[in-house]
Structures are given as C-alpha cells and as structure tokens.
C-alpha cells in the first residue's frame, strides 16, 4: 500500500544568554564539571528562582520572527518527574499559557513556543554515574510545530530555516554538536487519501539535521512495513541509534509520565507590556527570505548568489560592506563567495571592492586578479599594494605596446602574411608575441587593437 507520513517536530533551543534562566550562573559551554553552579541551580533546600528577563525577551523575539501571537499574560508551571539530572525533580516550564502561540516557519505551522530550564547532563562510568550540573538551568526554548510535514526532506528544510532565523536574530548559536539545538520528532503514517492520523511515534536522540532526516526515513518505512504485515502500530517513544541507523523502543504508552503540572508558586506571572513588546520589535532582524529578495533586487544578484550569501550572516554582512557603492556587485559576489571562512579571513571588504575596480579598469587582467586575491587571502594586504609590490600593473601605455607590436610584426613575417591572406587566427600568434615581449604585462585587448590597426594600415 502507499503511505503518507505525518511529521511534527519539537525543537529545544538553548538561548544565548550570559546567565542561567533562574540564577546568575554562567552558561558557557565546556567548563569543568560542576563549576558553573550555585545553590539555586543545584536545587538546594530553601532557594528560590528569579526570572532572566533576557531569556524572556529572546523568546518573544523568536515569536515575532515566526509570526506568533505573543501571550501578554503568561505564567510558569512545575513539571514533576524524578530524574538525577533534575536538581529539584521538577522542571520550571510553561504548560497552558506559553509565551508565544501560532506562527509559521516556511509552510509549516508552529503550535507554540515556551520557555523552560535545561536539565543537567548524566555520565555513566563503569560502576557509577555522575551528573554535571553546569547545563542545569540554562534557558531552554521549546518550539513545537504542527504536524504539517510530509517527508524527511520537509522536516530537514524546516530545521534549516528555523536555525537560520534563530542565528540571524542572535537568539541562539544553534550549534547542534554543543546541544544548543535539539530535536524530537513525532511521526506517523497513514494510507494515502486517509484523513485520520495513524498512531504516532516519538523519536528521540537525533543529534544532527541529517540524523533527523535518516531517522524519519527509517521510521516511516518501518511503520509502513508493520502495517503492510497487517499488524498494528502503537503509540510509543523510540530512540534513534545513529550508528546502526535504526530506532528502538524506549517506552510505551502505559509508561507515559503523568507530569502533574501545576502553577509555579515561586514566580510571578510574566506580563508583557506594550513598551516591552515595542522594545523587542526594534531588535527584529531582517528575516532570511526577505534578505534574499533584497539582495536580488538591490544588487542584481542571481538567486544562487543571494542564497549562498544570506545563508551565512557573516558572509552576507561582509558582502554588503564590499558591495556598498560598487559598480559591479555581481563580480564582488563571485569573490566573496569564494572565501572559505569569512570570520577568519584577513581580507577587508573594501579591498574586495578595490580589486574588482582595478580589474574592471583594465589595470590588471582577470587571471592576475586571481593571483592578487590569493595573496590578499594570505596577507590581508590591499590589492593596490600587492600590484605595486609585484609590478603587476598591465602596460596600457599605447606607445610601449606599439613598440612591442612593431617588433612582433618584424620578427614574424609568416604570421603577417597569413593574417593578410584572411587567417584571423594568425593575429593571436602575434598577440602572444607582444605579451611575451612585454613579459605578460601588456593589456591584451589594447595589444590586439594596435596590431590590427598596424596590419590593416
């Protein structure tokens, strides 16, 4: 039978804030275990949480980027479950009044965005386990999508678009290797044409976007196979194993948690005032799609170039600086796109503009340009300095070229005769001789013009 997949994603994003969600501890990644902790994030007896306003602002900013409705009066709830990585054995989260509701990422609907605190990290040794609480209490934003995706590719595209948006808004660095963006997927299959959703399976432990794509691909075919055998699927949570490329059961529905949510009595409700909302609205970055369109319009770039540049905020920023005031923004795009690591390059945007200008003015050839650019990448020097230093400037002095042309004509009577007999290609040989005599510095176009004039004259 033919099946259609129905996919929804739950994405957890660590917010880029200096301090944790409910205490002043640092959030930096990679510190020695249990060095970024205090009584509050360790859940010591008697401590109380205090909200991090920055984290709330970043969540609202995300909501505005995604086009959510911002909840003006939201609140905190306690989500109760026991686990060694949970200092209080409840997580402060948002249950029925999340900060943001609705919105879209591309064509996929977003159900809600809420804020909570991250848990610690468990490590298992031979006979014991350890917990590193550095991560515990890091602001964590959960973005829940509608079940609008129908293929692993659509799910991957959703994640790429979401990531792009969050990075552009400086909400998070979204480094999946550091766990800054984590994704759980809900997936079910149904016979094509059927309206009712199938039994949904939640997949956890996918650590890369390609992992999400592979896990979904595997799970969709697994579910289809089960149904084709005439068996039934059941609601369950499965774990993705990236090495074997398979999923396996973590827990079935009977073992689903009862989180016993109730309003967090230690925190006041979150009231989003008009003033705060306006303040955050001013921080809204240009969204990637709008930026791509603007690059095409403003700089006359092909769609491909706009896509490549906008996908990397640093690259786009570099490009805009280089292209400002340039007569040839497309040429600038070619050079900029060829830089492999824009954040590490010593090149200055203005120097790329200079390089394009000297090539367009005919001072150096395009081929020489490549050498100059390579030297710019290595040294950070300006193209003008490099050209002078290496004596690369083309000879565009007609007098000098005429002298070379005369020499070439005198030394190659056969070519002259061929040309005069109508063999246009013979001109190239003479041009080559002029270039050779000028040690490659003659402006080839000018050399061609002078030779033609002389031979016809």
């Amino acid at each position: 039978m033919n099946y259609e997949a129905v996919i929804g994603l739950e994405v957890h994003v660590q917010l880029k804030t200096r301090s944790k969600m409910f205490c002043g501890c640092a959030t930096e990644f990679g510190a020695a275990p249990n060095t970024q902790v205090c009584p509050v994030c360790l859940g010591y007896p008697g401590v109380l949480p205090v909200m991090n306003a920055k984290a709330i602002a970043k969540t609202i900013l995300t909501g505005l980027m995604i086009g959510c409705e911002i909840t003006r009066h939201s609140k905190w709830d306690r989500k109760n479950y026991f686990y060694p990585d949970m200092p209080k054995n409840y997580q402060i989260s948002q249950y029925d009044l999340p900060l943001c509701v609705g919105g879209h990422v591309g064509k996929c609907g977003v159900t809600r965005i809420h804020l909570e605190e991250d848990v610690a990290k468990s490590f298992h040794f031979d006979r014991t386990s350890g917990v590193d609480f550095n991560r515990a209490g890091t602001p964590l934003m959960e973005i829940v999508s509608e079940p609008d995706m129908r293929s692993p590719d659509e799910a991957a595209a959703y994640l790429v678009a979401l990531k792009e948006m969050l990075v552009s808004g400086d909400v998070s660095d979204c480094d999946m290797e550091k766990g800054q963006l984590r994704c759980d997927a809900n997936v079910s299959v149904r016979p094509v044409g059927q309206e009712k959703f199938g039994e949904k399976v939640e997949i956890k432990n996918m650590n890369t976007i390609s992992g999400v794509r592979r896990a979904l691909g595997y799970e969709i075919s697994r579910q289809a196979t089960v149904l084709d055998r005439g068996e039934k699927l059941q609601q369950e949570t499965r774990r993705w194993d990236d090495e074997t490329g398979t999923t396996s059961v973590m827990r079935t529905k009977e073992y689903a948690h009862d989180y016993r949510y109730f309003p967090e009595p230690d925190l006041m409700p979150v009231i989003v005032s008009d003033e705060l909302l306006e303040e955050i609205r001013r921080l809204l970055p240009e969204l990637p799609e709008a930026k791509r369109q603007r690059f095409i319009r403003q700089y006359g770039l092909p769609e491909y170039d706009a896509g490549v540049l906008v996908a990397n905020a640093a690259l786009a920023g570099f490009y805009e600086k280089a292209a400002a005031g340039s007569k040839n923004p497309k040429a600038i795009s070619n050079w900029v796109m060829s830089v492999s690591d824009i954040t590490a390059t010593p090149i200055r945007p203005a120097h790329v503009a200079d390089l394009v200008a000297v090539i367009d003015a005919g001072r150096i050839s395009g081929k020489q340009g490549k050498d100059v650019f390579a030297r710019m990448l290595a040294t950070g020097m300006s193209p003008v300095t490099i050209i002078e230093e290496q004596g690369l400037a083309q000879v565009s002095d007609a007098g000098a070229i005429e002298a070379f042309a005369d020499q070439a004509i005198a030394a190659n009577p056969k070519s002259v005769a061929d040309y005069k007999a109508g063999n246009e290609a013979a001109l190239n040989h003479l041009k080559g001789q002029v270039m050779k005599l000028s040690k490659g510095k003659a402006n080839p176009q000018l050399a061609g013009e002078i030779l033609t004039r002389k031979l016809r004259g």
Partner: protein
Amino acid sequence: MSGLHTLSIHELRDRLRRGEVSAREVTQSLLDRIAGVDDKLKAYMWLNPDDALRQADAVDAKGDKPLAGIPIAMKDVLNVAGQPCTCASKILKGHVSVYDATVVRQLREAGAIILGRTNMDEFAMGSSTENSSWGVTRNPWDLERIPGGSSGGSAAAVAGDEAFGALGSDTGGSIRQPAALCGCVGLKPTYGRVSRYGLVAFASSLDQIGPFTKNVADSALMLGVISGHDAGDSTSVPRPVPDYAAALGRGVKGLRIGLVRECQIEGLDREVDAAVKAAVKKLEDLGAEVVEVSLPHMQYCVAVYYIIATAEASANLARFDGVRYGARVAGDDVIEMYGRTRGQGFGAEVKRRIILGTYALSAGYYDAYYLRAQKVRTLIRQDFEKAFQKCDAIVTPTSPEVAFKAGEKTDDPLKMYLSDIFTISVNLAGTCGISIPCGFTAQPKLPVGLQILGKSFDEETIFRVAHAYEQATAWHKERPAL
C-alpha cells in the same frame, strides 16, 4: 550576671546600649539558662556556644543597630551558612547550609547573634512538634504537654526564657498556634512582606517567616528588621517598610474590631472561649467598637488548605532524593535508591502529605481537587476583603483548645488538622495575624492565645490592637515555673 535571660529584647537593648552589660554577658546568661532547663524542654536541636560567644564578641552592642548584641534562635527550617539545617528530618541528617537565608543576613546586619536551631515538626508539617525525627519538645507550662507546632521549639524557647526572640515559619498557623499554646507573642506577616529566600519550602504560596517574642513591641522591632523587598524572592513585595514602633501606643479608640460569626464552632474549648470573650470586652472597654463580620467559606478552609499545601509540598520535597546532599540509602539502581532514601528518610506525616499532594495533582483529579481548591481559595480571600470593609481588625481564638498531652492526637491526624481551623484561613488569604497571651485555663494552668488579624500589609493595626491589649493586661508577664 544572672536573670538577664528573663528580659525582653527592648529591656536588654537599653542595658546593652547603656553599657551595663556586654553582648558576651547576655549570650552567656542565655547559654547558662539553656544549659539549665533545656534538658526538660528540649527546644534546641543544635547549639554552638563558642560560635555564639564569638559573634557576641564581634558585635558593637552599644551601637545603634536595632538588634545589636541580641541572640536570636532559628527554627531548623532556615538556612544559616555553616550551621546544620535538617528541618528535623532524617533525610537531611548531616546537611550543612552553604548560604544565609535573607532574614539571617538581615538579622546579622541588624547586629543580632544567630543562636542555635530550634526543634520543629518535620518539614514544618504538624501542630505539636511531635513529628520531629530528633525528639519531642515540651510545653514550658506543663512538661507532659506539647508546645504546639510546627515551630514548637522556637515558641518553647521564648516562653521558657531560653531565647529573647526566635524566628519560625507559618504555613497554616505554625507560628501563631505554638505561640498561643506556650504563652508568647507570635506573628505571621502578610505574604510577601518577609523574603522566603533560605526558608526550606513546605507550601510556597502559604509560607511566611515571622518572629516569636515576649511582647508586642519586640515583635514590631523584629518585623522591622526582617521585612522588605528582596530581589532573590520574586514573591516578596516592593513596598516600603513602615515604622512599626510608631504604631504602638496609639490605643484602640475608634477602631472597629470584627468578631467572626463562623468562629463559634463545636469543639471550641469553654475556657478558651471565655478568655477570648473577656479579651474582646477589654478591647471594648479600651474604646474599640465591636462589629460582627462573616467569613462564609471558613468551613472549607481546612479542606482547601490540605489540598493546596500538600500539592505544593509534593513538588517542594521532591528534591530530597539522595543525589546531591543529605542522607542517601544506596540501591541497585537509581529508582531503588530514591525509594529507599525517601522511604527511610521521611517520617509518616511527611509521607502522608506527599502522597495526598501527589494524588491531588494527578491526571484526572487535578480539576476536582487542586483547581477547585484554588477557586475556593479566591472566595476565602474575598471573604476577608469584604469583612475588612466593615472592620479594621478581626479577633478570634488562635487555637480552639489549649496545649494537649504528648501522644494524645498522634493517631488521629484529622483531629490534629482541625485544630488549625482559626489560623489556616489567614495563610490562604495571604493576610497577617498575631497571637498574644490572653489568659490561662484554671486547672492545669495553660496559656490561651488571642489571634488578631489584619488586612494585607496592615501589620501596624494588629500591632496597635495587640499592644493596647497587652498594656492593659498582665498575661504576658506570667512565666512558667521551670
């Protein structure tokens, strides 16, 4: 210097400021008293005499800090850096605090000496201090009887002249009821008046820290020190702290005192009723106008309280799991470790309440219990708002009965819960209340407490009424024979 331990904070402060006694002498006198009588009372769970004397030597007792050189005892539920904090529970055995509660910092800044730790019902759950893993504290007026609870150690210490002042916590009456049963002054401030940071939570939306003292003026002095906004407690309210001392001595003339119709309950002790009625008569004689008010939802208070308080407690006490601190009983896996640690670490009453609260929050029961209880809580709050439109303060008995014998009610938790009937509504409404001595039963001689309730953040009025009554009577001067 003998006899210093019988003084009030104000009396002591005058002598310290005049240089007649030193902070060391005061502290030593108190330590001697504790050494002399605490074998009988068992108010203190932990004491470090050397540390107390060191603090006394470091303080400038002649300075103008409000509590300079005065030792204050702490209920074992408040964090004091470097001191144990066990909440009288086996599960926190050996746990030493790593930070000071905000009230402790405020007391230190006011020049107070942070004395020992007083006994309590485990995690503040109880009305008799019998639910302590450490031992049973005795009532100074009759050593066979309980001191009330849950802050029984603090109340007994102050009433037995083993402390000049003490801090307790009040979630459903845990300051006012033991104050009444021991014959001292106990204040539950308005929710949000005093920072809860550093108070081990029982029920976060109901808990407040408050003082035990020998008289009303001392209570006002201590509240002035421990109240105020704290950025570390989001529920503390940014309101200026009034000069509570200024409220004293203004009399009750022109004040309207409310008597609650619903307080004439079955089970109200005849002598308690008579003492409270006599107190009301006294206030009338002093110029107050008595009006009848109604709190129509009072009959639901105990039910609402035991849903909300246990629900919050079930989450608050989840952190005691043996993973990071306190006692751990090993198991083959983490689930077994949790079960053994909590099974052996918590006492019966704490377990009972965790189970009740977990049940009340469970899927399918939340709406019927927790949500409904919150709605009734709103009605109770509105009852008080309406009542306070008709009067300036409300007067009730603090407890329907006087101190009972140890072991008398331990088999009947429901009966124990019902003894909180007059105090619980105040925590649900978030308002303030004070208990002061208003007489004694005849045989045996046991103290009776008068509860005076005020509007939110109107501690000034209840101090004013309490002080006027206290000035006109001598009950607070009576001392148990120990």
